[in-house]
C-alpha cells in the first residue's frame, strides 16, 4: 500500500489481476501515447489530426499500405519472438539488432560467396547459416552471462554497434559490388537465394517462417519440459536450482535460440526484401521488438498482433515524412507507449482507493 504524493489516494495490491485489464491497459496506453504525441506535433506547428489520419490511412487504408505493413510485420514478429524467448527467462537480450545484422551477413555469405552453386539447397543453407550466426553472436554474451553473471543488457547492446560496423565494413569494402556504381551494396542474390513472394506484392515467404516460429514457440513454451524449465527459471532461479534445473545450460541455450531467431529475421530481410546486403538491413527492429514483446506479454500470438500494429506505425511514419515529420517521431511514440504501459501495470495489479479520513499510518 503506497500513498500517491500530493493526493489522498492509496494504491493497494489486488489479489488477482482483472483479466480484462490485459486488453484495456494497452488500449488506453496507445491512446495516451498518441495524445502526448499530438501535443508535441501541435507544439511544432503541425496539424496533428491530419498527420494521424494520414498515418492511419497510409498504413491500413490502401492495398499498397496494407501489404507494406505486412512486409514490416514479418521482421518485427520474428525478432520479437526471439527477444520474448529470452525475456521469458528474465534474460534481457537487447542485442536483437546486432543479431539481425549477423544473420543477414551470414545469409549473404551463403548466397554469394559459398562455392556450392545455386539450387534448391541454397535457401535452407541460408536459413541455417543465418540462424547460426545470430545464435553465435548471442552466445558471445550468453557464456560469460551464464558463468560469471556478466550484465547481458549492456554487452548485448555493445555488440549491436559492432555488428552494424562489421556489415558496413563489408558493403563499403570487400563485398562491394564492382558493377554497383560505387554504391555500398553487394551483388544481387542468385535466384535460389531469393524468397518467393505472394503474387506481385513484396510480401515474401518470410511470413510463413514467422508463423512457423510462432507455432513452434507456443508448443515449446506450453507443452514441453524445456519450456517449463525456462518458465520456472524465469520466475525464480533458486526455485529452479532446487528442482535440479541447470540454470547455466538454459541461459546458454535460451540466448542461443533467441539470437538464432533474430538471425532468421535478418536472413529473411536480405533474402525477401533487399536481395542483397546493404547498410540499414534493420531499422531498429531489434529495439522495437523489445516493446512488442513486453506489450504482448511474451505471448507468441499476441506478438503477431502487436507487430502488425507497430508495422503499421512505421509505414504510417514513412508516409507522413513527406509532410516534414521526421521518422524519429515513431521512435518517440513507441518510447511513450512503453511509459504508459508501464504506468498502466499499476491498474492491472493494483487498485486505487481514497485514503481513509484519519490516516492509520504516516
Amino acid at each position: 500500500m503506497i500513498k500517491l504524493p500530493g493526493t489522498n489516494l492509496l494504491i493497494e495490491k489486488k489479489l488477482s489481476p482483472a483479466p480484462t485489464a490485459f486488453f484495456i491497459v494497452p488500449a488506453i496506453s496507445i491512446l495516451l501515447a498518441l495524445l502526448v504525441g499530438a501535443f508535441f506535433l501541435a507544439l511544432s506547428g503541425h496539424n496533428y489530426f491530419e498527420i494521424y489520419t494520414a498515418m492511419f490511412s497510409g498504413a491500413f487504408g490502401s492495398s499498397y499500405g496494407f501489404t507494406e505493413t505486412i512486409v514490416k510485420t514479418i521482421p518485427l514478429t520474428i525478432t520479437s519472438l526471439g527477444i520474448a524467448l529470452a525475456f521469458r527467462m528474465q534474460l534481457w537480450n537487447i542485442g536483437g539488432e546486432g543479431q539481425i545484422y549477423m544473420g543477414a551477413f551470414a545469409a549473404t555469405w551463403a548466397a554469394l560467396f559459398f562455392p556450392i552453386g545455386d539450387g534448391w539447397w541454397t535457401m535452407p543453407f541460408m536459413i541455417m547459416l543465418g540462424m547460426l550466426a545470430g545464435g553465435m553472436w548471442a552466445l558471445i554474451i550468453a557464456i560469460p552471462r551464464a558463468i560469471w553473471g556478466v550484465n547481458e543488457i549492456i554487452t548485448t547492446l555493445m555488440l549491436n554497434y559492432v555488428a552494424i560496423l562489421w556489415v558496413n565494413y563489408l558493403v563499403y569494402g570487400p563485398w562491394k559490388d564492382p558493377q554497383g556504381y560505387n554504391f555500398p551494396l553487394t551483388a544481387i542474390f542468385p535466384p535460389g537465394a531469393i524468397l518467393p513472394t505472394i503474387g506481385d506484392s513484396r510480401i515474401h515467404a518470410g511470413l510463413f517462417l514467422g508463423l512457423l516460429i510462432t507455432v513452434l514457440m507456443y508448443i515449446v513454451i506450453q507443452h514441453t519440459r524445456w519450456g517449463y524449465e525456462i518458465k520456472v527459471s524465469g520466475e525464480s532461479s533458486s526455485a529452479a536450482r532446487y528442482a535440479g534445473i541447470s540454470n547455466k545450460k538454459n541461459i546458454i541455450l535460451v540466448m542461443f535460440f533467441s539470437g538464432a531467431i533474430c538471425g532468421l529475421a535478418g536472413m529473411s530481410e536480405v533474402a525477401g526484401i533487399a536481395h542483397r546486403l546493404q547498410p540499414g538491413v534493420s531499422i531498429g527492429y531489434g529495439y522495437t521488438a523489445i516493446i512488442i514483446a513486453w506489450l504482448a506479454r511474451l505471448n507468441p500470438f499476441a506478438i503477431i498482433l502487436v507487430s502488425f500494429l507497430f508495422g503499421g506505425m512505421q509505414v504510417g511514419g514513412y508516409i507522413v515524412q513527406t509532410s516534414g515529420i521526421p521518422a524519429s517521431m515513431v521512435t518517440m511514440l513507441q518510447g511513450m507507449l512503453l511509459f504508459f504501459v508501464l504506468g498502466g501495470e499499476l491498474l492491472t495489479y493494483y487498485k486505487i482507493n481514497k485514503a481513509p479520513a484519519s490516516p492509520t499510518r504516516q
Partner: protein
Amino acid sequence: MSQEIFIAILATAITAGTPILYAALGEVLAERSGILNLGVEGMMLVGAVSGFICALKTANPWYGLMMAMLAGGLLALVHAFLTVTLRANQVVSGLALTMFGTGLSGYLGQSYVGVPLPVPFKTVPIPVLSDIPVIGPVFFNHDPVIYLSYLLVPALWFCIFRTRAGLHLRAVGENPAAADSMGINVFQTRYLYVIIGGMLAGIGGAYLSLHYVPSWMENMTAGRGWIAVALVIFATWNPVNALWGSYLFGGIDALGFRLQTLNVTVSPYFLKMLPYIFTVLVLILVTKRNLAGRIGSPQALGLPYDREER
C-alpha cells in the same frame, strides 16, 4: 610515436572521456540510491539537442548547458516517477526512456542537423599550470566544462563517503527498509539522486554538441550512454574510479581517431569498433574480479521499495 602525438592523444582522451564521465557520475548517484537508470543514452541525446538549440538561440554555451541539465533532469523525473512511485520494472522503464529520448532528440533536432555552432565552449589554458611539461597540455589546456569535472569528482567522492547525506544515500541503496526505519525518506532520496543523475547525463550530452563536435547529428552519442552505464560497474560505484575509467575509454576512442590520421592500414570500421569491444571485455573481466572479491553493486539496486513488504 613522437612526444607531441603522445601528448595530443592523452589530451584528446580527456576531451573524449568527459561526456562519458559526466554521464557515469550521474549513474553512480542514481545506482547508489538503488535505482538502475538505463535511460542514460536517451538523456544524453536530449541534453545534446536541447543544449545545442538553446546555445544557438542565446549565443551562449552556458545557457545551453543549463538547458541540457533541465532536460536531462525532467526525463529522469519520468523514470523516477515510474520506478519509485509506481514501482515499475527499472530495466524496461530505462529502455523506454532511451527510446523516447532518441526519438525526441531526433524530432527536436530535425532542422538543426549539421548547423555549426558559432559559440562553442572555448579552450581556456590555466595560467602557470598549463606550462608544466606533459601534464600542462594534457590536463590544463581545456575548456571550463572539463575543469568543472575536475572539481566535481572529488566533491562527489567526499559527499558520498564522508558526509551524512552520503551515508543516507548509501543506506537507501543498500537496505531501504533499514534506512526507512532510521527515519530517512527513501522515496525522496531516490527521486533526488535519479534527477541529479539525469542532469549530469544532460551535461554529458551537451558537452558533445557544445564542444566535442560541436554541432548536432542524430544519434550523436553513439552508445556513449551505455558505455557510461558499463563504466559504473567498472568503477565499483566510486566517482574517482569513474574518472580513470572514462579517460581510459576516451583514450581508446582517441587512439582509433589518431591511428586513422596516421595512415594506419586498418579499416576505420574496425577502429570504430574498439570502444564497444573494449566495453564488453572490461565488463567480463570486472564482473569476474568482483565475483572473486567482495565489491558488489548496492544490495537493493533494481529492486522497488514497498513499505508494506519490508
